[in-house]
């Protein structure tokens, strides 16, 4: 790559992916190789039982998976985790039933996967975000956590605090499974901050008989800003599944909202046969509840609704609203996580004060549109009183194999918290954007102005290291090619996954960035736009991420994710990427369409990671201007009283 200044021309991305395989060492270097391995083996023997940070911590039931050495290649046999206990599938079953060999991951590759500035515990399994809030100067974050292993199970509440939603400090576990009503799981819940200063935490417990019940907990000491200790209400559970609702279909209570009749309301997702529904209860004291008639929302054939969320957004102002706000200036967002497909959906509507009904703006919206077209589930918002914003957290699971998770000793991260606003220009969707505090991680930057990328070319971008980046880019297609382009049958290209990925060439796309790539482009992850001209002459733009060439390993997901993105007149195509080792968060058109991906390269790691621009269109030249920052680590670590305010 040395001496190749912009622009460069390379052959376009090849259409057929080369099959992933583990290449054995060439004969010529065998003796040197074995000499080094001999040294390695000797040292390994000497260092014997030394604890490696990436060694697995397995449950008793996972003993056979415990390993400090990489496993020899063997066919994957994913197991289901979650549904038998009463929650959605938590395992990656994409590769179940297909004969996929496990890749021989080593410590170097696995330790690279840990993120530098996304929230994750020091080790083990995490899933849903719980009870996010701001209290006495600290942002609090709780999460579903398995203290015993890197797979779902034995769930308790982890806890961390931060001054700025970015630099987190780990605290002791907030709640463990120590009562009959949550002995089988201290599951998801939400916080409600009362005007009199009380902090109410409602959460789902799985009882000793696996019945899902709702419980009340509150801080042991409200004057402790760190809220380290929690008390479970002596009269728990406060809610049992109502008549007609299955005892395993009743979980994840929301933050409460206050209405003019002097009562607090909460929503809980459930289902009746295959119709997903949301029940509403009201209460005065969070100890006794009354089920309201009807449902807040219901959609047939969607299955169980988990982690529902219900909150107002301002129609006019660029700020968030407290959960209880309602009025003419306000729309209400109804959100649900679908157990069936592990995706989060939301719809905009009006919450009628008179009768407590929520009416969607578009009667045909059904379940709604997705928050994020990649891996993003069990999301939850909260109202940040400190800065007056509505902030969204999302659980980002792994898309590699359980074997690899156990070997590396951890699984899952959280998204960077996002502000949520109504898109005032379209009026029909939300905008999500990383909280501004993430900008404080920016170190040195490089600007590239109006780089021309011709059809069928790849341009390297010289940034020092390409594993921790904040990229802001704008693309423009040449006007001639736009006019000349034939009208395609856009309906045949209804999604990113049916267009052939980044290698599927057309007149006006795809074009974008290749992240987490290596010099030889044997591994790369395209984040790109694809423009097509519809039958009516109007342009339709798609925003996608293609994982088919992201890694030479065979045991990671290789899908193409994405969706169409509204591009208004006179808007350029713009994108922001947060690259952080094995996670890439992409935001198009200011957050109209978001895609979060997990990427697990085997070669494009550490100093070998590169960044490229690419244009696989056949007709159009693309001009791109970018600013790229190196991102600092967030130094997420256990809380230490002497060091608390240093970051």
């Amino acid at each position, binding site marked *: 790559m040395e001496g190749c200044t912009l622009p460069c021309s390379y052959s376009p991305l090849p259409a057929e992916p080369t099959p992933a395989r583990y290449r054995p060492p060439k004969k010529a270097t065998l003796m040197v190789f*074995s000499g080094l*391995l001999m040294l390695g*083996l000797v040292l390994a023997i000497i260092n014997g039982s030394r604890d490696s940070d990436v060694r697995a911590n397995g449950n008793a039931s996972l003993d056979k998976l415990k390993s400090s050495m990489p496993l020899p290649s063997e066919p994957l046999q994913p197991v289901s985790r979650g549904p038998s206990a009463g929650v959605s599938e938590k395992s990656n079953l994409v590769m179940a039933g297909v004969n996929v060999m496990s890749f021989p991951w080593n410590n170097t590759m696995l330790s690279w996967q840990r993120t530098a500035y996304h929230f994750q515990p020091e080790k083990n399994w995490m899933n849903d975000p719980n009870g996010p809030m701001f209290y006495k100067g600290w942002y609090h974050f709780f999460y579903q956590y398995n203290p015993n292993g890197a797979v779902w199970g034995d769930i308790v509440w982890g806890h961390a605090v931060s001054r700025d939603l970015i630099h987190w400090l780990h605290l002791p576990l907030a709640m463990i499974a120590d009562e009959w009503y949550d002995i089988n799981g201290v599951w998801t819940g939400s916080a409600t901050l009362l005007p009199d200063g009380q902090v109410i935490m409602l959460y789902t417990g799985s009882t000793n008989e696996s019945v899902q019940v709702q419980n009340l907990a509150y801080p042991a000491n409200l004057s402790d800003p760190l809220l380290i200790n929690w008390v479970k209400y002596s009269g728990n559970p406060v809610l049992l599944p109502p008549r007609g609702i299955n005892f395993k279909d009743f979980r994840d209570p929301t933050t409460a909202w206050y209405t003019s009749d002097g009562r607090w309301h909460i929503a809980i997702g459930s289902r009746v046969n295959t119709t997903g529904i949301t029940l509403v209860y009201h209460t005065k004291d969070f100890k006794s509840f009354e089920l309201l008639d009807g449902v807040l929302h219901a959609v047939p054939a969607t299955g169980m609704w988990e982690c529902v969320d219900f909150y107002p957004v301002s129609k006019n102002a660029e700020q968030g609203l407290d959960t209880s706000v309602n009025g003419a200036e306000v729309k209400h967002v109804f959100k649900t996580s679908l157990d069936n497909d592990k995706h989060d959906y939301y719809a905009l509507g009006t919450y009628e004060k008179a009768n407590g009904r929520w009416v969607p703006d578009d009667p045909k919206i059904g379940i709604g549109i997705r928050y994020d077209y990649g891996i993003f589930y069990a999301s939850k918002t909260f109202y940040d009183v400190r800065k007056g914003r509505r902030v969204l957290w999302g659980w980002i699971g792994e898309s590699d194999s359980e074997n690899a998770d156990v070997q590396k000793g951890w699984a899952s991260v959280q998204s960077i918290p996002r502000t949520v606003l109504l898109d005032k220009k379209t009026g029909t969707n939300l905008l999500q954007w990383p909280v501004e505090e993430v900008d404080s991680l920016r170190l040195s930057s490089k600007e590239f102005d109006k780089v021309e990328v011709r059809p069928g070319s790849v341009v390297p971008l010289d940034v020092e290291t390409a594993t921790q980046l904040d990229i802001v880019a704008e693309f423009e297609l040449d006007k001639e090619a736009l006019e000349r382009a034939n009208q395609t049958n856009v309906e045949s290209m209804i999604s990113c996954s049916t267009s052939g990925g980044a290698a599927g060439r057309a007149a006006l796309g795809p074009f974008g960035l290749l992240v987490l790539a290596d010099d030889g482009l044997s591994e790369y992850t395209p984040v790109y736009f694809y423009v097509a001209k519809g039958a009516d002459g109007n342009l339709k733009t798609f925003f996608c991420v293609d994982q088919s060439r992201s890694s030479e390993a065979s045991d990671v997901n290789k899908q193409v994710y994405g969706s169409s993105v509204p591009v208004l007149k006179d808007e350029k195509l713009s994108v922001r990427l947060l690259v952080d080792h094995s996670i890439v968060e992409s935001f198009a058109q200011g957050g109209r369409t978001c895609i979060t991906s997990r990427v697990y390269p085997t070669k494009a790691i550490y100093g070998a990671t590169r960044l490229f621009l690419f244009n696989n269109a056949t007709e159009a030249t693309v001009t791109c201007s970018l600013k790229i920052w190196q991102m600092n680590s967030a130094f997420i670590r256990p809380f230490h009283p002497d060091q608390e305010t*240093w970051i």
Partner: protein
Amino acid sequence: MGSTNIFLLSLLSLAFPHYIFVAGDANLIQNTCKNTKYYDLCLSSLKSNPTSLNADTKGLAAIMVGIGIANTTATSSYLSSQLLSVNGNDTIKKKVLKECSDKYTYAADAFQASVKDLGAESYDYAYMHITAAADYPNACHNAFKRYSGLAYPPELARREDGLKHICFVVLGIIDLLG
């Protein structure tokens, strides 16, 4: 060692082709931190950054400098926000807070400069920049001292200590280099 032993060991190592010895590791982190004035701070800071496991001593120094940057940037922001909530008439307090905010920004710049020097293996220059970074909080503290009516906020005192401790740790690591 007899040639048979070497041969057998080679065979054994071929039977386990997947194990690759990693350059940086937990031992290196511990030994490096032992050479610094604040072992616990050094250890918890380096362990919180995933790339530390694969870093050499120079890399560990760079990671610690990153912490210094985060600290000074945060303090600078903190001072700016303090500035916003000062009473309009209190021109002296405003002046002092502004001066302090500037000093902590210079400290962040000094850390940035030291990163470049570390990369180029100019350890003397890197050392110099870290020493400068450690001195900027004194300038801020002195600004408060000049005006007897102005108390030095305990929050700022904590941050000053924090920055100095981080600097000592970086200097301890640089001592092991070059």
